[in-house]
Structure formats: structure tokens, C-alpha cells
């Protein structure tokens, strides 16, 4: 990885920079295909085969098949592209937020509401 510059550390956050864009290219490209209903159907019919078709590495494939968002991010996934995968499973942003933060969907939604009361 390019390491000429020290990376800014922001808790609980990974900036989608050149290193991540390189690492996640195949995964994000597969997710970009999900703009097409035909591709979504093909994925649904056989997720593992579809991951292979797009050249995902083992880390990416495992993350996708287990539907673990934090693992997909660690494998270079970008939030906007991963959201298209989430859409296939009918997951909205509160489902995805709850999974990543280890709380129930109701707890996650309550946290958002609480942010407005501060």
C-alpha cells in the first residue's frame, strides 16, 4: 500500500481513499452491476457463483456471503455500492446501521432521534 502520508485516524471510520478503492475494486464493481434488475436476479439465484464471476477475492466473497457489512468495508467496499447489495436483501440504512454498531434496529433508530434532541 502507498504509505507516503500518515493517514488521519477517525474513530469508527475508514476514509474510502486510493488504498481502499484499489482493494475493493472487484467488490464495488460487482455491486455497481446491481443497478440492473437482471444482475440482481442473477446474484440472488447463486450469490457465490456471481461473486466468482466478478473476481472477488476470498475475503470479499466471505464478507458478501455472510452479509457482514463491516467485513465488506474492511475488504474495500464503498458504502454507496454496498447499499445496492443491501437493497437486494431489502435492508434499509437503519438495518445496516444497526448491524454495524451491534444494536437492534429500534435502538439504532432511537439513537438517531436522540441526536435531534441534543
Amino acid at each position, binding site marked *: 500500500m502507498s504509505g507516503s502520508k500518515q493517514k488521519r485516524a477517525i474513530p469508527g*471510520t475508514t*476514509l474510502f481513499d486510493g488504498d481502499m478503492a484499489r482493494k475493493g475494486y472487484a467488490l464495488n464493481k460487482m455491486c455497481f452491476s446491481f443497478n440492473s434488475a437482471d444482475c440482481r436476479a442473477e446474484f440472488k439465484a447463486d450469490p457465490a457463483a456471481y461473486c466468482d464471476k466478478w473476481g472477488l477475492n476470498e475475503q470479499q466473497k466471505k464478507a458478501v456471503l455472510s452479509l457482514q*457489512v463491516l467485513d465488506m468495508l474492511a475488504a474495500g467496499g464503498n458504502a*454507496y455500492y454496498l447499499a*445496492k447489495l443491501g437493497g437486494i436483501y431489502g435492508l434499509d*440504512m437503519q438495518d445496516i446501521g444497526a448491524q454495524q454498531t451491534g444494536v437492534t434496529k429500534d435502538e439504532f433508530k432511537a439513537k438517531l432521534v436522540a441526536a435531534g434532541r441534543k
Partner: protein
Amino acid sequence: MAKIVGGINVTHVPYIGRAIANNLQQDAYWKPFFDGFPPVRDWLARVKPDVAVLIYNDHGLNFFLDKMPTFAVGAAPEYRNADEGWGIPTLPPYIGDQDLSWHMIDSLVEDEFDIVTCQEMLVDHAFTLPLELFWPGQHPCPVRTVPVCVNTVQFPLPTAARCFKFGQAIGRAIESWDSDARVVVIGTGGLSHQLEGQRAGFINKEFDLMFMDKLVTDPLWVTRYSVPDLVELTGTQGVELLNWLTCRGALSGDVTKVHGNYHIPISNTASGLLAMQVA
């Protein structure tokens, strides 16, 4: 010469599209958001823009990571929406204004902003939903459009100062266009939100309210922050406030607030709306 009547900044959460499609505007969850718009629609009815220049970020509909321009300008006769993969309705096409597009392209490059030009361009929810909110149910939309994409997706992003200067250059371009058209500039996205990571759900009301206030009176205030600072302060997607700043840059002279609204949450987002008028 063309006249800029003002600028409007607004959030662009995809699920707004579903709420509109399902007529949920007066539902308890959505009401505080949708109730912000009538005063802005009234103002638009008074200032009567002919063209809207929309500054936004694409979310993987027109641009993939194979080619990711920092700044791109549409130059198409019409702009089509398409399936974005997350189940919101696809909206009818929007009419372009190729004369303004090419004038802007000429002027921006002369001004040393070497933008990407797009004679074909799909427009996603960040372009379509603000127009649906300002001119609800009007198809075709009553204004001609010019899309301007800013990369807020793949780092490095343009700095806040660069975005403000880009906005200023857009303003100069519009105001040097030999036309009697009235132009509204629209910036979409934000405010604070973060979709991914252990910090998902992050919102910063205090910063958002300060930003909305400063944007009218002292827009350079936010340029003190680096892009990573802005991510830390507003979230990985809160950094879309760069589109608001670009829009503000296009407004010169005395700028006053017409109407503002702020509500938490819409989906995972602190929603903001800010209309500004140029004297």
C-alpha cells in the same frame, strides 16, 4: 446577461423518493421534513427561474470508480434517471440547457477549472429528488437543467476552499452568459450523517446549525476545516456539505436567507434546507 436569482441547498436521501411515491408527506415521520418546502416553493414562484444548475454527487449511477472526475458538467439535451438498485421509483427525464452547459464549460476551463464534460449523463436521486421537492409532481420539470457533479465519494475530495472557488467560477460563468434567463443554483446532500463503520448513525446537530448560519453570512468559515476534519465533524456522507458550499460560492454580493429548515432524522441523516436570495 443571465441573472442568478439565488441558491437552494437541500438534503438528498433516497428514501424521500419512496415517501413521495407513497404520499407520506403528512405522515408523522416525514411531516417535519416536507413542511419545510412550501415557503421555498412560494419564493420560486416569485423569482421564476428558467434554469436550475444542480451541484451534487453521483452515488454510482452515472460514474463508477473506473473513471471518477473531481468535477463534471453535463452538456446533454436531456438527463435520464435510472434504476439505482435500492428500490426507489425511476422518474421521467429532465430537460437540459445545452447553451448554458457549453457556456459554463468554456468559461470554467478559461477560469482554470478543467472539468469533465458529459454529453450523456444519467442523473440519480441527488439530482431528481430536490427538483421533485421544489416542483412536486410537475413532469416535465418546469426548469431546464445543468447537472454539475462533485466527487464526494472517493478520496481525495476537493478541499472546501476549492469547492467555494469552483462555485464562484460557476457564478461568473452563469452571469456572463448572453441570455435573459433567470437561473437558480441548487446544491444537494448532507447534512451530518455517516452510513458506514462502527460510527454509523453519527450526527452533529451543533455543527450543522453553525454551518447553515455561517453559510449565509460568512461562507469562508467552513474552509478552515480540511476534508478529513469535515468527515470527523459531520460524517463520511456529511462531507456532501461541499455541494452546499459550491452552490453558495456561485452567489455573489448581498446574500440573505429566504427560508431554512433542519430536522433529525430522515433515514440516518440530519436533513437540511436553506434557500438564499441574491439582492
